[in-house]
């Protein structure tokens, strides 16, 4: 399971089915993540619009649901301008690097504990992760460390003032916050005694005391709440999002490092940014919020919480049907009830697990991924929320927060956590 390359030889020659399945899994994950990315832009625009009492995208498709597709097509068909005097190789390399690295980090994120309850191609089981190495967390940090190059090189290669300033800002910012980012998770690693993401999740078992088992409230060693806030702040800075989006501060730098990029090369930076948002949200969930563990303890009296997925999906689906039937366009009146019907049907099927055994097993199976995805969704909402609420920091404030606040606090957190872990071991 932990094979990276070393036992590749046996795998390569042994099972072609395994390879086909893994490639299919990668393709499926990329498809899902890119679609989620597209709808994340829609979600962001809708939520920010709601916060500013606007309507948001509303014209393309019912409730603007086809807006991401329209944006994508527009990116594809726009003229691809390459400014004069750019360093061609580096100019083309930068968006490619940014996108590849951010997508690559998805490979080590586990989405559920059990393999799919089917067997494929003679006994192969499908786990809900691409790979699960012992050093998953370190691989993520390695990819983050390389991620700086996409932005820095884009700024440099554009041969233009504002992108260069944006690139310089962002490399200084990302190098500064990487320290706090890495230090803030050391507490979690100490408690789990492992760099493996699945080990870290399994250690935050919530079956006894519910969400008190999560690292952020972990009462049987040291609550990582300080580490969590350091991590969250540093991670938002690391993904160059509001309120730390100085590399692309439009009031000062036009658009920062991607000013000179147009058409699909700009879209690549855009997709990279949203993919890192998903990765960071998944990491917050996995490291501090118990990963796929439910916030409820595993007591018989709380078994009903297993029907929470249907309790969310069924009313939401019914509401979409109701809302769709009175939508102003015919197209919307046709499409929205169908979408709502599908969502409600899934919810109803999960609820039917009370009476039907196979559906019950299906409902049990989706518990873990459901909680993981719900928490990831919460953090994605948090990103948008922060964007709708907070003003941008000044550059000196940004550096002060990184070096004089986050770094000392996260180092103190490491020392205290290490002491507590050591004391608990001795007793």
């Amino acid at each position, binding site marked *: 399971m932990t094979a990276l390359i070393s*036992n590749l*030889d046996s795998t390569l020659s042994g099972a072609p089915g395994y390879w086909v399945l893994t490639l299919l899994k990668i393709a499926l994950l990329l498809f899902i993540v890119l679609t989620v990315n597209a709808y994340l832009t829609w979600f962001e625009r809708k939520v920010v619009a709601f916060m500013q009492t606007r309507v948001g995208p509303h014209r393309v498709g019912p409730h603007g649901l086809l807006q991401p597709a329209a944006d994508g097509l527009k990116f594809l068909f726009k003229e691809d301008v390459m400014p004069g005097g750019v360093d061609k190789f580096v100019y083309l390399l930068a968006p490619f690097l940014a996108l590849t690295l951010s997508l690559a980090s998805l490979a080590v994120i586990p989405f559920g504990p059990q393999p799919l309850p089917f067997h494929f191609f003679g006994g192969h089981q499908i786990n809900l992760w691409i790979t699960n190495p*012992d*050093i998953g967390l370190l691989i993520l940090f390695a990819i983050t460390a*390389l991620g*700086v190059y996409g932005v820095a*090189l884009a700024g440099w290669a554009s041969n233009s003032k504002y992108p260069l300033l944006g690139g310089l800002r962002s490399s200084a910012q990302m190098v500064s916050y*990487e320290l706090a980012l890495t230090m803030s998770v050391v507490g979690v690693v100490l408690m789990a005694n492992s760099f493996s993401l699945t080990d870290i999740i399994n250690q935050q078992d919530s079956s006894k005391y519910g969400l008190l088992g999560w690292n952020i409230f972990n009462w049987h060693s040291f609550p990582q709440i300080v580490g969590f806030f350091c991590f969250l702040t540093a991670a938002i800075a690391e993904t160059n999002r509001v309120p730390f989006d100085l590399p692309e501060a439009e009031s000062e730098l036009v658009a920062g490092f991607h000013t000179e990029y147009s058409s699909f090369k700009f879209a690549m930076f855009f997709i990279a940014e949203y993919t890192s948002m998903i990765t960071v949200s998944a990491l917050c969930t996995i490291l501090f919020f118990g990963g796929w563990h439910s916030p409820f303890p595993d007591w018989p009296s709380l078994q009903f919480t297993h029907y929470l997925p249907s309790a969310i999906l069924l009313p939401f689906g019914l509401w979409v049907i109701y809302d769709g039937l009175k939508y102003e366009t015919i197209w919307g009146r046709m499409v929205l009830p169908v979408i709502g019907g599908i969502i409600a049907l899934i919810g109803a099927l999960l609820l039917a697990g009370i009476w039907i055994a196979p559906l019950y097993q299906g409902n049990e199976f989706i518990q873990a991924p459901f909680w993981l995805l719900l928490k990831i969704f919460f953090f994605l909402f948090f990103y948008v929320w922060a964007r709708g609420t907070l003003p941008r920091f000044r550059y000196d404030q940004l550096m002060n927060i990184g070096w004089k606040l986050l770094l000392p606090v996260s180092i103190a957190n490491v020392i205290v956590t290490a002491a507590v872990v050591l004391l608990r071991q001795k007793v």
Partner: protein
Amino acid sequence: MSAPLVIFFVLAALAVLGAVSLILQKHPIHSALSLIVVMVALAGLYLLMGAEFVAAVQIIVYGGAIMVLFVFVIMLLNAGEEERTDFSKLAKFGGLPLALALTGLLAATMSRHGASVPNPETPGSLAPTGQISNLLFTTFVFPFELTSFLILVAIMGALVLAQREKG
């Protein structure tokens, strides 16, 4: 040829090409990028040997931190293309023979002892994370602390120099 061997040759070729390109490139940024290729290819080689932790740290420290600093400084100084000059006499008569001798020595050593390098069966068996940290904090704690102290001194020296320039 077995799959690990193919991967080894690909990574090794990448590392050598990166190193050659590091010297031949005219622009400092291109040289720095070539060096990053070398670092990442080396990390891949460590991974191939089953030293997962070392590979990740290689990318985080060398590929990430140090090379980002290089690129950052080159960008900040806005260094332009460099002109190519002829070999200096010292390089021609001292450097080239010495480099050839070193290559020959390395090749001879490797061809004699190359077969005795163990090929780990399971990942992480060559250098598991726990074992590395145990070694660092027990057997090699003195050199480890000494290195940390050296780095601390270097950081303080850099701070003092930067402050003096300001005042």
